[in-house]
């Protein structure tokens, strides 16, 4: 963990000027091979759900665009989101991460502290007025004027308001900053709230999770860098590329759910076989996040809660994480039943074929036709015999 490598005591020289790097300089500047760099860009593009053609755009943006200034505030939090970000990549790429942005204020990573750091913050804010990104980590207590969290003599609320005033965009990283997270658990004694609620604004991008997946944050920032605006978000400010689907929709154990195979206790046969954890309280069916796809820690498959055998606790979802008991059963939220459910009406049975209909019509027609013909024949016979009788009568009376 290279503390103090980025940022340092003062803004680095040369950051702000636009750098005209060739890709050959990538190795020198970032300490990684060009291949690794492109792989990184491709990964970011994939996380954003962008097509292959965007990879070059992302690479260009990272290399050539002016790195946005980032002011990172911490409030009621465990610093897990920062820690998660730092563990996002192989150590040789840490430099790269911290070079995508110009981290101009970060309480955890800065070596310096106290008034110097606060002064550095204010200078960076003044220099990049209207252009810096505000990233907030941690919930903001609102009760009693917000006195339950103070930095440098200012309450979190005041501090956030001050920095937010001239920010180009605000990103709330982690569940705490997104909607209050763990500090806001009932009875919420300090009145913790997310940034959007604290500031009374609707334009906050939230990247909930506990911790949030670092790639969600990174991709959001790179999107801003590449396209000059934040990615599309839902009504809660969550980027759609990461939070538009339920864990349940992409879970590797979904087949077990669909087939009705559940683990009933930790360590039982079903649990060891990797069966669905729904009955143990998995909140996947009601949690919007992409943990099931992106995983954590870059150590391969199963590096996420369900993969390790623990039910999802819905940490990113307000009303679920730190609210619904971990082992309570999840509701299925916004479920669109898959196409394989049989409806209450399903066409079955065998109706008429043309041949069969023709056969029946033919037979009936034949029967009717024959009857009519026979009737006519009978009528003709009767008329004939009636006239014959009429002729016979005179002969008969003559006989008698």
């Amino acid at each position, binding site marked *: 963990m290279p503390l103090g490598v980025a940022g340092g005591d003062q803004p680095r020289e040369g950051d702000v000027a636009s750098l005209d790097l060739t890709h050959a300089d990538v190795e020198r500047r970032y300490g990684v091979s060009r291949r690794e760099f492109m792989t990184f860009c491709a990964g970011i593009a994939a996380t954003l759900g962008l097509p292959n053609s965007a990879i070059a755009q992302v690479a260009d943006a990272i290399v050539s665009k002016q790195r946005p200034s980032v002011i990172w505030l911490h409030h009621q939090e465990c610093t897990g989101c920062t820690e998660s970000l730092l563990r996002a990549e192989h150590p040789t790429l840490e430099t790269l991460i911290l070079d995508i942005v110009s981290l101009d204020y970060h309480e955890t990573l800065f070596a310096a502290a106290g008034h110097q750091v606060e002064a550095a913050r204010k200078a960076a804010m003044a220099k990049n007025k209207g252009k810096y990104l505000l990233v907030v980590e941690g919930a903001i207590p609102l009760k009693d004027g917000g006195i339950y969290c103070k930095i440098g003599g200012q309450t979190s609320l005041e501090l956030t308001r001050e920095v937010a005033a001239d920010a180009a965009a605000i990103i709330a990283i982690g569940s705490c900053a997104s909607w209050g997270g763990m500090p806001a658990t009932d009875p919420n004694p300090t009145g913790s709230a997310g940034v959007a609620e604290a500031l009374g604004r609707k334009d906050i991008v939230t990247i909930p999770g506990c911790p949030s997946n670092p790639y969600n944050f990174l991709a959001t920032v790179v999107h801003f860098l590449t396209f000059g605006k934040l990615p599309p978000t839902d009504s809660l400010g969550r980027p759609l590329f990461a939070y538009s689907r339920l864990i349940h929709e992409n879970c590797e154990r979904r087949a077990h759910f669909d087939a009705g195979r559940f683990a009933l206790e930790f360590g039982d046969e079903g649990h060891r076989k990797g069966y669905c954890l729904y009955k143990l309280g998995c909140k996947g069916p009601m949690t919007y996040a992409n943990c099931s796809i992106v995983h954590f820690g870059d150590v391969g498959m199963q590096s996420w809660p369900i993969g390790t055998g623990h039910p999802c606790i819905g940490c990113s979802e307000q009303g679920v994480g730190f609210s619904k008991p971990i082992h309570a059963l999840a509701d299925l939220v916004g479920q669109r039943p898959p196409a394989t459910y049989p409806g209450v009406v399903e066409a079955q*049975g065998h*109706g008429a074929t043309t041949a069969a209909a023709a056969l029946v019509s033919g*037979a009936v027609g034949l029967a009717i036709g024959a009857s009519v013909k026979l009737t006519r024949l*009978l009528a003709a016979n*009767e008329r004939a015999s009636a006239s014959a009788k009429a002729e016979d009568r005179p002969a008969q009376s003559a006989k008698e």
Partner: protein
Amino acid sequence: MTDAAVTPAAAPGQPAPVGGNLVNALSVLLAVLLGVALYFLYRRFVEGLGAVTNISNGYPWGIWVVWDVIIATGFACGGYAMALLVYIFNRGEFHPLVRPALTASAIGYSLGGASVLLDLGRYWNFWHILWPGYFNVNSVMFEVAACIALYVVVLWIEFSPIGLAYLKRTKLAGFTNRVLFFFIGLGVLLPSMHQSSLGSLLIPMGYQIHPLWQTPLLPLLFVTSALCMGYAVVIFETTLVGAGFGRDVSAELPLLGRVGKVIAWLLVAFLVLRFGDLAVRGQLAAIFTSGGRSVMFGVETLMFVAPVAMLWPEAPRARLSVLFPAASLMLGAAVLYRIDAFLVAYERGASWSYFPSVPELMVTIGVVALEVLAYLVFIRILPILPGHAR
């Protein structure tokens, strides 16, 4: 359809074989139809019902049940109808019509019973239905099956004097004739029971039979229409055989005319019961508001009403050109009534549909062909039809 007949010498009016060549254009055609049916029956037994029929778990009963068993036994009610008239109502003058009716009944009921075996899925267990310890006396179907099985035996016993006379077993024929009265009584009771119960089969199906057809009066409606069918089929067959063999049926004509009047009265009774029942159950409006079923009900009713109009006045009843189409319409009405009650009125929900497949239809046609073929063979060989000069 005429043939070069060699009419055996017999006293006029006495039953006599029609004679003639058994093999002719019609019998060959019937045999071919039977052959086609046998091919599909082979496939039915080797591959299962689903390979040949369109029945399904939405429509478990198709035309093999409805036509080959229910309708065909209705056609075979001639013996029942004539026995009632001649022996119970003591209308001896109808006697000449008994034998042909009995023959058609014996053949028709035998094939109707055999057709059940074609339709049963687990036919090798069929004897269960007649075996104590297996049969369930609460079941309508048990009663139908037991009655029909017994009635087939009774019919052949009633028929036996004809066969015995042909075989010149005079003593045995005489004995049989003396005890025949018991079987005649049985032969009126049994069809009354099972023809009505064929209607009762629908009662446990409850709401699944449309209210235009579902009623507690089903047994009465079925037995009345079956009786009508019996009388109508006598007129029908007499006419066809007369026309086909070029026979002069003028001696039977007055009898047929009176049979026609019986049909008219019975149909009136049937229609009164049917519409009275609909009125009492508050279903008269449904006649017009049931979509396709309304159409079928309308056609069926018209076909029941038309023969009444045709057969009520006395003068037209003396003419075959009125009797025959009236009888045909009556038979058509009864056929349609049964198809409607079992298949058209049957409601299984929006998922299900049924229409017979071509192989299924060919089997039914083949069974009918066999009935006609057997009848023609019988009347040529055995003394059944009243002997007449041509």
